[in-house]
């Protein structure tokens, strides 16, 4: 064991529409990033595992409505939310992922269970949701994921028929 540890997080990249970012908005986003970073850092400082630090930090970001993941995720063409997540352990090269899962608060939690409790790497769609339910992960109704920002982005994209490459949701 050495004393070296470090962590980095991101909340997405893309066309952030800089004009939206008044000092107050910047402060809100920076506060949200700091909260997630500190949550993961605390685990590392106390000798915890990098996997636990990541899952904790990403769950903070999934619960924050500012970012396109979990609560605050973008809308799909059906007006719902289908979420993807992955986690990978550098020590064993084990990995777990879910794609197109709906109705669960923390996709990264489900991805980690795929890694640690199945022999699979990637579960998708209804099967991924069935697995998450079998594992007892917390479910949420559609309004948990709803935010005005994403709803209006979705309506705008539908009305304007912007092509898929129009970057309205920064990653």
């Amino acid at each position, binding site marked *: *064991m*050495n004393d*070296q*540890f*470090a*962590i*980095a*997080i*991101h*909340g*997405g*990249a*893309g*066309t*952030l*529409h*800089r004009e939206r*970012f008044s000092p107050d908005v*910047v402060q809100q*986003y*920076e506060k949200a*990033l*700091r909260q*997630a970073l500190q949550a*993961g850092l605390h685990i*590392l400082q106390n000798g915890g*595992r*990098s996997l636990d630090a*990541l899952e904790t*930090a990403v769950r903070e*970001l*999934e619960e924050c409505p500012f970012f*396109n*993941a979990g609560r605050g*995720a*973008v809308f799909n063409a059906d007006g719902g*939310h*289908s*979420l*993807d*997540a*992955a*986690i*990978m*352990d*550098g*020590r064993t*090269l084990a990995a777990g992922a879910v*794609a197109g899962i709906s109705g669960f608060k*923390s*996709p990264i939690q489900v*991805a980690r269970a795929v890694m640690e409790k199945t022999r699979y790497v*990637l579960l*998708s769609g209804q099967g991924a949701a069935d697995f998450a339910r079998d594992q007892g992960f917390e479910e949420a109704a559609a309004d948990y994921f709803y935010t005005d920002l*994403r709803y209006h*982005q979705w309506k705008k994209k539908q009305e304007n028929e912007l092509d*898929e490459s129009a*970057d309205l949701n*920064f*990653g």
Partner: protein
Amino acid sequence: TVGAVALDKNGNLAAATSTGGLTNKRYGRVGDSPIIGSGTYANNNTCAVSCTGDGEHFIRSVVAYDISCLIEYKQLTLRDACAFAMQRLQKIDGTGGLIAIDRWGNIQMPYNSEGMYRACAYTSGEIEIKIFE
């Protein structure tokens, strides 16, 4: 899209990514985030990477694994490997960014879009939180 990469006191690296994907996505579209090697990758011998941006471009360029290979097979530094991978992404008009960490605790957070929500912390206690340049 959100993500994290970390190095713990046992020298273990890990990477995680979670996303809602693209607004108004159809037909079960899946981006790079859940694709191991494209949007998410970790290997104690090289680095841990989490990506965000135009998922299709990150899938086609296998960006996360590309960075790991550049370190493992060409002995590039994390900085140079990330720069090379971002150049390749740019060549196919991909936009976005990534966060990466190596086994010595070096961190890179490059992006070629207007901004990226990002933050990092080191053993020293130094913390960096940024959105734009």
